[in-house]
């Protein structure tokens, strides 16, 4: 069991890492055999150097962006799950609100973001609003779907056992919805990083998104790549944290599938 799990871990981590090594090696090879200028495509080594040499600059700006992402992501989860529960609880609200939920995704956030800046200024608030706006939707939609996924026969069984509506929600519908909620939260984790960069492009004086604009003006391509690497690292860490939480909260969803049968 543990041997098989260890092997699975090596394969699950080794395969993507191996692929990444291949891609970087190919990148280095392209740089070595062509004369693409460093301002267009720096070599992997130059990006690594920039990461190290600019570590203070990157860290200071990363911290700003991380705070934006965490607050915005949390707001998206609260907003998404809250909206889903209100919509699920009331059919009239669902009819009235659900279409607008979809419409909210048709609104180009790039266009709306400056308005948030006009409303709230250049502090944390417009960033949180942009991040929440781009990432609440998958949470809301997946939670609504999840709440509908509860087995109707189970709900009937609960009624025959004398369960109230509130008990049916707590015992059957919320637990049944959790895997879907996590699917939405995982998508939201990825979107929130995009949202943060977006928000900083519209109006910011610090943060990794802002840094990219500054470096772009200086044609500091290697440093831009380094910034992107840090941003990707933040996204991966956030996604990984969600994945870890899912494993902890839903052991039945992952572990119970395999197991002994008689």
């Amino acid at each position, binding site marked *: 069991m543990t041997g098989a799990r260890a092997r699975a871990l090596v394969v699950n981590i080794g395969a993507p890492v191996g692929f990444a090594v291949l891609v970087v090696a190919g990148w280095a090879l392209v740089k070595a055999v062509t004369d693409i200028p460093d301002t267009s495509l720096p070599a992997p080594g130059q990006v690594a150097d920039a990461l190290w040499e600019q570590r203070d600059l990157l860290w200071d700006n990363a911290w700003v962006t991380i705070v934006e992402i965490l607050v915005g992501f949390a707001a998206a989860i609260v907003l998404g799950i809250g909206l889903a529960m209100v919509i699920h609880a009331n059919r009239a609200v669902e009819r009235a609100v659900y279409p607008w939920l979809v419409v909210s995704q048709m609104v180009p956030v790039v266009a709306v973001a400056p308005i948030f800046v006009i409303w709230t200024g250049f502090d944390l608030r417009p960033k949180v609003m942009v991040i929440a706006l781009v990432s609440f939707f998958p949470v809301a939609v997946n939670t609504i779907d999840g709440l509908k996924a509860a087995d109707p026969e189970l709900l009937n069984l609960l009624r025959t056992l004398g369960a109230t509506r509130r008990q049916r929600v707590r015992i059957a519908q919320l637990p049944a919805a959790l895997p879907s909620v996590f699917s939405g939260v995982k998508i939201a984790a990825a979107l929130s990083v995009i949202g943060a960069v977006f928000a900083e492009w519209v109006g910011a004086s610090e943060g990794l998104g802002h840094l990219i604009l500054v470096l772009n003006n200086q044609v500091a391509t290697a440093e831009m790549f380094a910034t992107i690497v840090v941003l990707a690292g933040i996204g991966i860490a956030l996604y990984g944290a969600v994945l870890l939480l899912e494993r902890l909260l839903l*052991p*039945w969803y992952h572990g*119970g599938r395999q197991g002994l049968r008689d």
Partner: protein
Amino acid sequence: MAAKLEVQALGKSFGDDVTALRGVDLVVGDGEIVSIVGPSGCGKSTLLNILAGLQRPSAGSVLFDGVRPDTLLGVTGYMPQRDCLMPWRTVLDNCTLGLELAGVPRRAARDRARAELDRFGLLGFEDHWPASLSGGMRQRAALLRTFLAGRDVLLLDEPFASLDALTRWQMRAWLLDVWDAARTTIVFVTHDVEEAVYLSDRVYVMSGRPGTVILEVTIDLLRPRTPAAVVTPAFAALQERLLAPLMSAATSQPEAGA
């Protein structure tokens, strides 16, 4: 024997066109196992849903201990056809569901469930997720959940239909053992005549839609019964008595829907 459950002139229509049940009369005595057999679409499940309180009859009444309750919800112990075990709860926490909803403290509920694990063949599996259980074990867990809810009448909707033949026989024999110890009243819905004869004190045969009782047969085989009873002439004769009207009910049915 006192009547535990009495169904009088029960009818159920859906809209203007579909009559699922018409004039159903049946009596279930205290401590009896009574089976209801019928072709697909005869309204067995509708009847069971009404007895469970999930649907209201369009006509007639259901008496429980001689009185007509406001609602049958929470009066009878209903076991749906699928086991409906919650995958996010361990076997033990699935089984305590009825006790939990009755307000029994968690520890006491778990103790009561633990005490029954052995008899229900679940000992050592109480902390497993339902997904890791075999079909037979899942059904036994669902039955334990139903038993622990502590109702006087259990409504079992084809509980063994999804199991393989050998497991089904084990489960039938095991159910009789459990019933023999508790003498709970059981209403058993099945389309399997052999199963009905083997388990029951009496069997009602229902016609195709609109479903109504067309035959009542008393199963006067001695208890305790063993699977070997199946090969006796008396058993075969009873099976034949049930099968003939069931076959004609099934063929007179224009479409065999659910």
